[in-house]
């Protein structure tokens, strides 16, 4: 399966954010979206998720228009992990993850035994099963991020889209989420995530897309695309590469 878009224009009713965007995501690969603030990362993400209609062009899933797929069916194919939020109501972690099973029940049905089992399984997979009965509003930001990831996994999707999954996490939790992303792609899912840190893309993405002012300025294998020149051009700021024989990392200059 492939999510693809050619010559896509993205934006809101009153504002064009980007145009001429061509992007694709296959199963078993992870793709990182990098770019400065206001470059259109989140808008592109929402368009690819089908949450925002494209201004021009079409997002396709295996050749079929995404907009023609009912929301329920779409939710079984693409999982969405939003930026961590605090939540308004103190649902238990288990209830939050069970919401990931919405697309598998009928309008009036309650979660089935299978739904509970899947939710449990996803919590265990991410090592947070002990939080199941805790309230979502009372756990830490890193734990909340994992809960939202567990909810997306409970959708049993083919693709998973994460909006700045590492943004509000401490160093240890960043590593945890990045290895999870790696593991998801290893397990056959197509993973798309945005990040502000090129090192996170180096750590977990097979491919990167560099997005600046609503246009893709470079796209390709992570190691080939993430060079000092490309990053300096992307962010309009100095970048310091640090490397040993095997690996490279970047410090903000």
């Amino acid at each position, binding site marked *: 399966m492939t999510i693809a878009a050619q010559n896509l224009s993205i934006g809101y009713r009153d504002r064009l954010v980007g145009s001429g965007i061509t992007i694709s995501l296959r199963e078993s690969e992870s793709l990182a979206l990098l770019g400065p603030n206001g470059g259109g990362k989140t808008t592109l993400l929402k368009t690819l998720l089908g949450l925002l209609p494209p201004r021009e062009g079409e997002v396709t899933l295996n050749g079929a228009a995404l907009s023609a797929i009912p929301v*329920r069916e779409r939710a079984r194919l693409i999982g969405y992990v*939003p930026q961590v939020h605090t939540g*308004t109501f103190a649902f238990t972690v288990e*209830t939050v993850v069970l*919401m990931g099973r*919405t697309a598998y029940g009928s*309008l009036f049905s309650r979660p089935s035994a299978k739904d509970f089992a899947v939710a449990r399984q996803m919590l265990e997979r991410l090592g947070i099963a002990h939080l199941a009965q805790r*309230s979502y509003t009372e756990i830490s930001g890193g734990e909340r991020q994992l809960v939202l990831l567990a909810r997306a996994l409970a959708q049993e999707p083919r693709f998973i889209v994460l909006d700045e999954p590492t943004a509000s996490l401490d160093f240890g939790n960043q590593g945890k989420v990045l290895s999870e992303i790696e593991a998801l792609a290893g397990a056959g899912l197509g993973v798309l995530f945005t990040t502000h840190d090129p090192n996170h893309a180096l750590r977990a993405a097979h491919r990167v897309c560099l997005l600046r002012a609503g246009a893709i300025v470079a796209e390709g294998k992570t190691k080939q695309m993430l060079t000092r020149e490309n990053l300096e051009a992307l962010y309009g700021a100095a970048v310091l590469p640090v490397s040993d024989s095997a690996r490279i990392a970047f410090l903000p200059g």
Partner: protein
Amino acid sequence: MRRSALTGLTISLLLLAAGFAIAFLVGRFPVSLADVLSVLWAKISGQPSGVSGAVETVVWQVRGPRVLAAFLVGAALSVAGAAFQGLFRNPLVSPDILGASSGAALGAVLGIYFSLGVVAIQAFAFIGGLFAVSAVYLIGSALRMRDPILVLVLAGVVIGALLGSGVGLIKYLADPYNQLPAITFWLLGSLAATSASDLVSLFSLIAAGTFVLLLLRHRMNVMSLPEEEARALGVSTGPMRIAIVAAATLVTSASVAAAGIIGWVGLVVPHIARSLTGPDFAKLLPVAALLGGSFLLVIDTIARTAATIEIPLGILTAFVGTPFFIWLLASMQKNWS
């Protein structure tokens, strides 16, 4: 704190039993619990009750309809409040957020102004409530902005203000000796005029709306997430929002039509219910309904017995609700900081 549905249900059922007992027993005409039970049993079994005719009249015809109406209205307002608070992702929202009360008020006040009968006044109130919410919803849908919830709330505020000035105009024009007192009394909320015949329409409307909300309880959990998340989880948020608003408006309008404007119940009771059961609507809705019913049973008993004249319900609920609301604000501030 671990909250359990069973504890919440048990507590609210006990409170409800207490509420019913208080509402039946307290009053100017002394009635014992045994009297009440034997009258009720007599009505169920068809046997003669063995209590005096006066007692039977008080239990079955005077207090009975009023007690049932108090329960229904309290339950309805609380269920609608819980639904709206979830839908608007804001715990400070009340059932009249979309103008149901102001629409109903204008309808009822018009009915009184044109000297219509009780049934017509209630019908006017009901239609007014539905009309106001429909107008708010149409305006909210016409102005397509990024945050549909915020647009709805703002449209509700604006339409509510407009309808409020309509009520003001009619009060200004109304006959100050006959109509104005009736209007004022109705606007403050009362169950004094409830008759057994009102109960049928009140019950069926409230039951229908509550039933829909109960059916949708698991979808309502998802609807309390940000719009885009709910859609990404597979919910068609537009139709689902219409269904929830329609059901909650139905029960609100029905109760406002029957009892006038009773504030605060729909704001306060869902919070108490949530503190017992947690926010999961599958557990929250039944407990909110039972607690709301018991709350209004007690309030209505105070309203008819505390003074030589009836105290309007809206005034009593405001006395309870205002301190609660301030406490709520203070405790939320603690959470936010």
